[in-house]
């Protein structure tokens, strides 16, 4: 295994799949000549040519829809959303066509499509360029939604996404493109619907996905200093969701905190809390708590932005609260 960045892991997965399978092709704005806004696809145009690495105009609905048509014909397009903030323009295509066409065609077509790009905030992009869309897309049957955080999972889940016969919403932690981790060489797939226990512990369960997993790991370190052993669960896959791993952990720890960058209401953490109370009610020693983003459009100023996202302190504090410890 070699150490690679999140960015390199992504590119490696796409490159290997393109080499393996002629039907894989890429579409997006500035992914070719420019090299990719986040340099994920840098060099791929030279390797695969413009038939397979398609630079598109600023037409999210147009090229996402075209990619759906291609997928219905058996190609395996990977669409880059420059950032997920622009996907609302393509939302009609994603929701009304990609997610449903298999169903309303009575199973006559399938849509092996991946749409990928950076999700979430943290780098002062302010209101219109800061969204965490996992529960938005996670709401729709017919879509699969993943949000990996480690470079190894990024590679493994990208390969799984490309090979999946269904539309996959691949939410990257944009703020982490430069982070490093061990990445298995070659064929490495990570199945959907399987959470990862990022840290084992017996006192409280911290549930997160994407960038917040790292935050929870840091919070767990802090808690450990005071003798509290937190278990950190990285969901990785939002739809399908691995309920079992969460429930199993809560049966052991009897307490849970669910952490998300997105807004509190109608979010993934609410879903986690609901599932825990439905399936592990008798095991709970405290209410399940949520740590979420502030209920405001994201502000620009650094200090205000920091207040918007869950912090290590907040997670530590809430973890102590569900343990009924003095805060």
């Amino acid at each position, binding site marked *: 295994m070699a150490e690679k960045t999140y960015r390199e892991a992504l590119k490696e997965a796409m490159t290997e799949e393109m080499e393996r399978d002629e039907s894989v*092709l890429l579409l997006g704005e500035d992914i070719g000549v420019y090299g990719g806004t986040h340099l994920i696809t840098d060099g791929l145009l030279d390797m695969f040519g*413009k*038939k397979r690495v398609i630079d*598109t*105009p600023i*037409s*999210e*609905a*147009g*090229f*996402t*829809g*075209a*990619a*759906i*048509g*291609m*997928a*219905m*014909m*058996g*190609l395996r*397009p990977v669409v880059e959303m420059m950032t997920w903030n622009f996907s609302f*323009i393509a939302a*009609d*295509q994603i929701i*009304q*066509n990609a997610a449903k*066409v*298999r*169903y*309303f*065609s*009575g*199973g*006559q*077509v*399938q*849509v*092996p499509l991946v749409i990928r790009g950076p999700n979430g905030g943290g780098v002062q992009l302010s209101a219109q360029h800061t969204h965490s869309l996992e529960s938005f897309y996670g709401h729709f*049957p*017919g879509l*699969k939604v993943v949000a990996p955080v480690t470079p190894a999972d990024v590679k493994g889940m990208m390969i799984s996404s490309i090979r*999946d*016969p*269904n539309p996959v919403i691949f939410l990257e932690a944009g703020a982490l493109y430069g982070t490093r981790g061990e990445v298995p060489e070659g064929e490495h797939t990570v199945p959907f*619907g399987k959470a990862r226990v990022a840290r084992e512990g017996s006192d409280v369960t911290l549930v997160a996905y994407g960038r917040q997993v790292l935050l929870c790991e840091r919070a767990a370190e802090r808690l450990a200093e005071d003798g509290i052993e937190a278990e950190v669960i990285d969901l990785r896959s939002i739809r*399908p969701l691995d309920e079992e791993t969460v429930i199993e952990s809560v049966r052991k720890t009897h307490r849970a905190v669910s952490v998300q960058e997105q807004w509190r209401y109608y979010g993934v953490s609410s879903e986690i809390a609901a599932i825990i109370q439905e399936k592990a009610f008798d095991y709970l020693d405290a209410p399940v708590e949520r740590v979420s983003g502030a209920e405001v459009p994201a502000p620009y100023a650094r200090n205000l932005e920091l207040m918007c996202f869950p912090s290590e302190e907040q997670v530590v504090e809430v973890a102590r609260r569900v343990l009924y410890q003095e805060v």
Partner: protein
Amino acid sequence: MADEKQTEVSAAVDPERLVRLYREMVLVREFEEASQRSFRQGKIGGYLHVYTGQEAVAAGFLSQKKEEDKVITAYRDHAHALMLGADPKEAMAELFGKRTGMVKGKGGSMHLFDVDRGLMGGYGIVGGHVPLGVGIAYALRYRGSDGICQLYLGDGAVQTGAFHEAANLAGLWGRDGMCPVVFIVENNQYAMGTSVERSTANPDFAGKFEAYGIESEKVDGMSLEAVLEAGGRVFEEVRESGKAYAIEAITYRIAPHGAADFFEKYRTKEEVREWRQKDPIGLLEQRLLDLDAVDEEKLQEIKDEAKRTIEEAVRFADESEEPPPEELYTDVYAGEDEYLGKE
């Protein structure tokens, strides 16, 4: 000038072919009448959009579809399915929401699919299917096929953003010979109750494609022969060039927008009556009689036969079983026997 063209066109057309297509157009008309009746009887739910008045467009173009070609359209899709060879029984059964329907009772009137025959579906969000058709065309070329995509859309769809984005892509990809798509704008003068005049300051639909580097023409969508001529020529050009092309078929929706629309405040009875003079089926009957291709008796025989076929289709639909409850959770995801969302 127009007369000259007309004779030119007719010379190329074989009367037997016209009779064959007349048969299909009459069948579609019968199907639509029966579906409206069944709707009023409460046997068909949801929305029902019929094709009455536009039959020459689908008949002329779809009869020239080659095996490798693909077709995609909006929700006014019964004619497209039938003319591509779908069994009227299965089409009607879909409208009735039965398990024997074309898409197993899961899509209804607006979503007829027949992928084996190249019908990539009917879609319900106005303009939303247009990008799909462009991608389908790209995929055909990518795979090395010489098929083309017939992409049907309404005058209303031309006002959507999805259409304009897709048209731009089609023009762009066509430059590299990678977009063998023919946009067929079925300009039936209305988008629900909004006339063309009230929906665009530039009602030249064919002309709009120029902005995207796509050549275009207009065709009289009430004349089967004109549609046949345009289709025959354009499809082969596009097959050859891989470049997008657009045809505006000027036609008229004689029926109300949807089967539930009883009052039509947006147009006058006189206007409808006037267009009825150009009913493509009526015009074709006259033409066939003039050509001595049929006599009155033959026309009646064709109509009676269509009636019988459709009566049988209605009976079949009526008697078919509803989809079994297990079907609720199938076809949500591909490649999965057990769907996780199942309660």
